[in-house]
């Protein structure tokens, strides 16, 4: 690895550290007024960071961040006011109070959004409505908590400044020292967030943004992760709010206003979405711009400039400043996806595969059967799954075939839980899983490969496999061992660091299958796995499926008859949502009734 590559990898640690040092040096030299104003930019950057965590990482544009910011600010300030007589240090009091309150508010809202599995747009709008609700509520709200008077015409005033000394009623710091203190607090929050997003938790959050369905199909309870991430962002916003209260010594409901709410995404976009450091860059830049414009002849034109900047950013510079710099830097680094260009055909190593499957059996227990009992799914007047009762056992692969619209994929999706069954039961082993969430079924031993390859495009091949393995093992080392084995079984070692999006369609299919194997599933459901594969790859797939069926229960939905013939397994013909015929493929090929429904001949249709 070259120096430049190492530096690139650690950029998120190094450059912020340099920036913090510069800020601390500047704090000693700045005019007090500039230091006072610049403190607010850092606070807004922190608020931007809280949005970047949910939006840039989690994938949800939340317009509720100012609500958590405001709530954290009010609560932190109220606590600070009441504690001022007992305990001097206002930072130590207000920050935890703001963080806790912000996190709690976010958790309540997040519970509604994520546990009812709301769409993205609805979630954004609900978060916006939440902010508006607070804004209108606080207009006339009046409450006295100890020494603090919330609401009324004067807002919440008499908030102590930033005090470091522990002695009661100490003097608050000078503007330059406040600036330095806020920079240090923000740096601490930034580095913690940076660590969190690098951690296993952060990796799952990234996966949820890239493909929420696939993440759940790997057995992760996505709602829990989303909720925790949202609550964390609320805590960060709450800290920013608490700092804001101490900085301004005064709070009023305008903190919840629409203008405030919509400024936050601008900070994030200007700096760079998903970069964590970006919001600070954005906030300082915009703050600096307004400061400079406000003092010059172009006074008051900030809004105009901001508007134009926002439009141009959305149209032309989607990744913001840090994103653009990142792209430039990447051009000077060796291309990680270089290996994808000279790819060879996948070749399954059966011996390695058997070893993996034996290990999986040792770790995850014996294969389980899959049973459906009078399973029914209805879409309006169409019944794609009509009272299907079937049992699938390990030993030989099961194929589901049938003409278009016969209900093959729908049956599979209803078993998986992508479609909620209207009636009937699904059993994995002895567990009735019909009403369980998808991730829960996966934890019970179900492995699913959908028709389209589902891989996490921005992650490398090995990271894709690792995140799948980690879902089961919950141990970093074990996940590493499993994913190393699977990658060599697939013969993708050379592509280890290639981004999944750079792989060919066929290779993505293999990677997806590899991720399913990482789960050590006891029941495997494959929806048209051969689609888009070459003849050679289809042959390898057939080998894999047959081997797999000796250790687990395997159900395959497929159109490709040649492929099904090579599986040498049990075949079920579905027609109009019902079981139409079954047996082995040779018998079925001679069955006139089956040919009729395939050829659309009308006698039996």
């Amino acid at each position: 690895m070259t120096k430049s590559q190492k530096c690139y990898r650690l950029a998120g640690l190094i450059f912020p550290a340099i920036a913090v040092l510069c800020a601390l040096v500047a704090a000693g030299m700045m005019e007090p007024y500039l230091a006072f104003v610049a403190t607010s930019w850092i606070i807004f950057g922190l608020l931007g960071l809280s949005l970047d965590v949910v939006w840039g990482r989690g994938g949800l544009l939340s317009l509720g961040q100012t609500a958590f910011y405001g709530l954290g600010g009010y609560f932190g300030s109220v606590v600070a006011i009441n504690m001022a007589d007992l305990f001097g240090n206002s930072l130590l009091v207000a920050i935890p109070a703001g963080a806790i309150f912000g996190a709690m508010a976010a958790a309540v809202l997040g519970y509604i959004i994520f546990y009812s599995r709301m769409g993205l747009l609805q979630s954004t709008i609900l978060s916006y409505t939440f902010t508006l609700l607070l804004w209108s509520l606080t207009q006339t709200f009046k409450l006295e908590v100890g020494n603090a008077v919330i609401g009324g015409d004067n807002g919440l005033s008499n908030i102590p400044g930033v005090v470091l000394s522990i002695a009661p009623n100490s003097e608050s710091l000078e503007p330059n020292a406040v600036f330095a203190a806020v920079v240090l607090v923000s740096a601490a929050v930034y580095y913690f967030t940076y660590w969190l997003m690098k951690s296993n938790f952060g990796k799952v959050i990234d996966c949820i943004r890239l493909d929420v369905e696939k993440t759940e199909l790997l057995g992760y309870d996505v709602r829990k992760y989303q909720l925790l991430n949202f609550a964390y962002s609320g805590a960060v916003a709450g800290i920013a709010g608490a700092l804001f209260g101490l900085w301004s010594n005064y709070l009023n409901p305008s903190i919840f206003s629409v203008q405030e709410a919509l400024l936050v995404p601008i900070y994030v976009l200007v700096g760079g979405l998903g970069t964590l450091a970006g919001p600070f860059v954005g906030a300082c830049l915009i703050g600096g711009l307004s400061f400079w414009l406000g003092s010059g002849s172009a006074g008051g034109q900030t809004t105009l400039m901001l508007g134009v900047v926002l439009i141009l950013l959305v149209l032309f510079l989607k990744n913001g400043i840090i994103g653009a710099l990142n792209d430039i830097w990447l051009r000077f680094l060796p291309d990680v996806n270089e290996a994808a260009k000279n790819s060879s055909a996948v070749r399954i190593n059966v011996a390695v595969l058997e070893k993996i499957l034996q290990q999986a059996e040792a770790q995850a227990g014996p294969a389980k059967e899959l049973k459906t009992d009078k399973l029914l799914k209805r879409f309006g007047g169409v019944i794609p799954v009509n009272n299907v009762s079937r049992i699938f056992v390990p030993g030989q692969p099961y194929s589901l075939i049938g003409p278009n619209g016969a209900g093959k994929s729908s049956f599979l999706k209803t078993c998986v839980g992508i479609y909620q069954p209207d009636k009937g039961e699904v059993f994995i082993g002895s567990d009735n899983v019909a009403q369980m969430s998808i991730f829960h079924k996966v934890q019970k031993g179900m492995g699913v490969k959908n028709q389209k390859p589902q891989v996490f495009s921005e992650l490398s091949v090995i990271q894709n496999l690792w995140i799948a393995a980690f879902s089961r093992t919950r141990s970093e080392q074990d996940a590493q061992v499993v994913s190393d084995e699977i990658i060599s079984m697939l013969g993708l070692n050379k592509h280890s660091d290639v981004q999944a999006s750079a792989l060919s369609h066929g290779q993505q299919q293999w990677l997806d299958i590899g991720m399913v194997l990482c789960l050590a599933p006891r029941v495997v459901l494959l929806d048209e796995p051969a689609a888009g594969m070459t003849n050679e790859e289809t042959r390898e797939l057939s080998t894999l499926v047959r081997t797999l069926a000796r250790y687990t229960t395997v159900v395959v939905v497929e159109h490709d008859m040649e492929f099904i013939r090579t599986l040498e397994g049990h075949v079920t013909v579905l027609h109009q949502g019902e079981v139409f015929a079954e047996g082995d493929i040779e018998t079925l090929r001679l069955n006139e009734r089956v040919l009729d429904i395939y050829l659309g001949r009308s006698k039996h249709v």
Partner: protein
Amino acid sequence: MELDYLASVLVSSLSSASILLIATIGLAVVFGLMGVINLAHGEFLMIGAYSALTVTQLGLPYVLSIPVAVLVTMAIGAIVEVLIISRLYGRIFDTMLATWGLSMVLYQLAVLIFGTVSPGIGMPQYNIQIGDYNLAGYPLLMIVVAIAMLVFVYLLMTKTIYGMKARASIQEPEMAQAIGIDSTRTNTLTFAVGCGLAGFAGAVLLPIVPATPSMGFAFVIKSFLTVVVAGPVTLTGSALAAIGLGGGSSITASFMTSVAGDVFFFLVTAIILWLYPLGISAKWRHKL
């Protein structure tokens, strides 16, 4: 009289709901038919109001200023669609942010050109008597205007060839092209119509809501929530949502405080979104 009071509250609430609906219809066309969240909708309303104000200040009668307002906003809307919106179809959050930027630009331009305070134009003075209560006539007229706008948009979108093309282009964009509809031009026109409706709203509400650069903010939030609550059957849905949310909040406001009215509005919106994530009309079978 208690009954008179109730009746007057009801009528004035219906008139507030109508005012909300008038401000919303343009947004309903753009969001409901094109899937574009136009956060600058309020500013188009403001442009309409200033256009009408300028025309009356030049000495022309108020009635004539309304078509001028419509034309001005339609022209600006068409330009905005070509320059910004057309590049962002299918990217709903990007459109939202870009139109938010646009709204800031338009707001600031209005401040530069017109200043922050403008003279109002007098409200036509006639009153309606309900028992002991005297209600101003012009706000009540808005009920009629809202109904007329609904009927106009309904006819425009269902009875004209343009309307059919517009709906086809939105419902199945690829198939619309495949049968020879120039969906690019159709979309530009639809966006312009939406902006024109906002301009009309700004002009027709001018006697009640004086033109100020920030008047857009007052409307856009509630209009926007109304449209989202309405869901895919935009026109009927918006009418119902406006009556429910706008009327409800107005009634709440007259018995309690105006803040309570706002709280009612936002709280009910949040609850409806929770219960009907795709809007109240998600399962209706209607054209518009």
